[in-house]
C-alpha cells in the first residue's frame, strides 16, 4: 500500500480524487440512498407521514398469500408468450430486410427508431383510439367484412394488442441490434456454403441463425426485462383489465404505493419482481446462450 501511494504526489492524488468524487457523489445520492431506503421500506410499514415501523418479514410473507401477485405472475407469462416471439420475429425480419436495402438505409433505420423515442402516453392514446370499437380499424373491418374486433375488451386480445404496440415501439431498436449481428457474420462463410451447394433455407437455419445467437440472446434478455416493466400501455389503455388480465407488476406497485398508500409493500413487490426477472434472464442465458467464434 505504502509503495503504491508513494508513486503519486499529493497533487496527483488530489487530482485523482477530484475525478472520482463526482461519480461517487452521484452514486451515493441516486443509487446508494434509494437502495438503503428500499431495504428499510421492505422490512417496515410506512404511510408517508408516520415513522417507519419495523415488521420483519411480514411484507415478504404477504406476497406469498396475495392472489393478485399470482394473477400478475400468470399475466407476465402470458405477455412473454406473445411478446418474445412477436418481437424476435419482427425485428429479425426488419434486420434481414435492412441487409437487402441499397439506398436510404439510414433514413429507414431512423424512421423505425422514431417509435422508440416517442412518448408512451401519446402513442397509447393514439392506439387506444385507433383500435377502439368504432375506431378507423374496426370501421374498415366492418365495411369490408362486416366484423369488428374487440381489441382491448377481450382478455386475450387485449394482451395481444398491447404486445403489438410494444413490438411496434421496439422493432427499430431491437432490429438494429440484430442487424449489427448480421453484419458481423463473415461473408466468406456464406460464399463457402454456396459453393458447397447449400440452399437459402439451409444457409439461414445452419449459418445465419446459429451465428446470430449472441444478438438474439441480447434481444431476448432485453425483451424479458421489458415485459417485467410494462406499465404505460395497459395503465392508459386497459387500466389493467379486462378481468385483471393486463395488470402488470409495475401497475400493482404504483397502485399499492399511491392509491393504497402502502409504499412498503410496493417496495417489497418491486424487490421480488427484480429477483424473479433476474432469475429468468439467468435461465435463458444458461439454456440458450452459445459461444460463437468466427475464427
Amino acid at each position: 500500500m505504502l509503495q503504491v501511494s508513494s508513486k503519486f504526489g499529493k497533487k496527483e492524488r488530489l487530482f485523482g480524487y477530484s475525478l472520482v468524487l463526482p461519480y461517487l457523489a452521484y452514486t451515493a445520492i441516486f443509487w446508494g440512498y434509494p437502495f438503503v431506503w428500499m431495504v428499510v421500506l421492505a422490512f417496515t410499514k410506512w404511510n408517508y407521514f408516520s415513522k417507519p415501523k419495523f415488521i420483519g418479514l411480514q411484507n415478504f410473507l404477504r406476497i406469498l398469500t396475495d392472489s393478485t401477485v399470482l394473477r400478475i405472475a400468470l399475466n407476465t407469462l402470458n405477455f412473454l408468450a406473445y411478446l418474445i416471439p412477436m418481437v424476435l420475429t419482427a425485428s429479425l425480419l426488419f434486420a434481414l430486410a435492412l441487409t437487402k436495402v441499397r439506398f436510404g438505409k439510414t433514413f429507414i433505420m431512423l424512421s423505425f427508431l422514431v417509435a422508440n423515442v416517442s412518448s408512451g402516453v401519446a402513442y397509447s392514446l393514439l392506439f387506444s383510439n385507433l383500435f377502439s370499437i368504432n375506431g378507423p380499424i374496426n370501421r374498415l373491418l366492418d365495411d369490408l367484412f362486416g366484423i369488428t374486433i374487440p381489441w382491448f375488451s377481450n382478455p386475450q386480445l387485449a394482451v395481444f394488442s398491447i404486445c403489438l404496440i410494444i413490438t411496434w415501439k421496439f422493432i427499430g431498436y431491437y432490429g438494429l441490434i440484430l442487424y449489427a449481428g448480421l453484419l458481423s457474420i463473415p461473408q466468406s462463410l456464406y460464399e463457402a456454403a454456396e459453393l458447397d451447394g447449400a440452399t437459402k433455407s439451409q444457409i439461414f437455419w445452419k449459418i445465419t441463425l446459429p451465428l446470430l445467437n449472441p444478438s438474439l440472446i441480447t434481444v431476448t434478455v432485453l425483451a424479458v426485462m421489458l415485459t417485467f416493466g410494462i406499465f404505460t400501455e395497459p395503465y392508459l389503455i386497459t387500466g389493467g383489465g379486462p378481468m385483471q388480465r393486463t395488470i402488470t407488476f409495475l401497475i400493482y406497485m404504483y397502485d399499492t404505493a399511491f392509491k393504497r398508500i402502502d409504499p412498503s409493500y410496493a417496495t417489497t413487490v418491486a424487490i421480488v419482481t427484480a429477483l424473479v426477472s433476474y432469475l429468468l434472464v439467468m435461465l435463458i442465458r444458461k439454456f440458450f446462450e452459445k459461444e460463437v467464434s468466427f475464427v
Partner: protein
Amino acid sequence: MKRIFVLFLIAVLSLVSFAVKLTFWTAPNAFQEEFWKTVVAQWNKMRPDIQIEVQTIPAAGSSEEAILSAIAAGNAPDFSENIFSGFAAQLAEIGAIYPLDNFGTDFQRLVEARKMKNIMETWKIKGKYYVFPIYSNPMIFWWRGDILKSLGYNEPPQTYGEIYELSKKFADGKKKFTMQVISGRNWWDRWFDFITYYYAATGGKPYIDVEKRKVNFGDETGKAIVQFIYTMFQNKWTAVELGTNPFYNGTILAKITGPWEVNWAKETFPKVVPNIWFSAPPVPDNYPKDKPIYTFADTKGLVIYSTCKDKRAAFEFISWVFSNVQNDVLWIEKTQMPPAREDLTTNPAFAKFMNDKFFKAYASFVPYAVPPALTDKTIDIQQSMTTNLIEPLMYLKGKPEDILNKAVKEINKLLF
C-alpha cells in the same frame, strides 16, 4: 406628500414581501379553474398579507394519485379542492389533513352562514370535520329526446322492463345500443353505475355498512340489479366499448352524467342539447311509482393539509369565499354544479338558475342524492367490484347471482 407616498410604498412593499404565500390546487376542469381564478384574484387584491397561488391539480390518472404523489414527494399544496369523502377518510387516517373543528366557533359560523349543517354531518370522519364540501352533484340520466320521440315515446323509460321494451325497438347490437349501462373500468366508475343503481333501487340505502364492516348489496335488490346489467349485455343492448361520444352521435339513447358535462355539451354539441330529456337512474319493475327515486351524489370538498404553512390564513380565505352567497352564485354560473348548501331551492339568490332546464333538473335531485360510503378502503372496494362484479357481468362469465355472491364474499374479506 412625497414622503407620505414613499412611506406608503414601503408599507405596501413590506406587506407583500412578508406576505404568507399559499398554494391552492383546484380540480383539472376549465370551468372550476375559471371560478377559482376569479375569486382568488379578488382576494389577492384585497389581502396583500395572504397571497394565494392557484394551480390545477397536475395531470395524472386521477386527482387522488396526483395528490398522493405530491404528499410522498413532499410537494403537497397548502390546501386543495376536488377531494371525495373516501379519499378524505384515507388522508385523515394517515394524518395528512387538518381537522377544521380546530378553528372552533369560526368554523361553526361558516357552516351556519352557508346553510350546510346537515350536509356537514354526512362528512364526519371519526367524529371530526376534515372536509369543507363545495358541491353536490346528483347523477342523472340524459336521454336523446329526439330519437325517443321518433320511437313514439313522450317520456324516458324508468324501469328495467320499460328499458328492455325500448331496447327491442331500437338496439341492433352492432351500431345501435340502448344505453351506457357500465361507466368504465376505473374504480371511481362504480359510483356511476352499480352504486347509483343500488341507491335508486333501495331508496338510498348504504351499499356498505361502514360500522359493521360488511357489504349490504348482496340482497334481493342487488340480485335484481346484476340481472338487469347481465340482461343488457347478454342481449347486446349495451356494449363494453361504445366508442367516442356515443350519446351525441346517436349510438346510444341514454347515459348517466353529472352537471359538469352541461357547459361542454352546450359548446360542443349545440344541436343535440335542446333535445335532451332527463330521468332518474333505472329501477326494478316493482319499485313504487309514488316514491322518489334516489341517486348517487358526486360530492367533492376542500381540505387543508397538515403541512400547510399557515392554516389559519388558508381558513380565512375559505371562510371569505363561502360565507358570501354571491360566490356560490358565481360558482353555478361558471360550473353549472349545485353548491353543497341546503337552501338552493329557497334562497332568492339562486332563483334565476331555475329557468335553466339542466340546473333545474339537477337541483331537483339534490335532496335525493346520497354521497358515497365514508370508508378509507374505497379504492380497494371499488376495484374489487370492478374485477369481481362488473367485469364478469360485462363478459357474461357465470350466472348473475353467483357473480354477485362471489363479489360480496371478496369485498367482505377486504372490509374485515
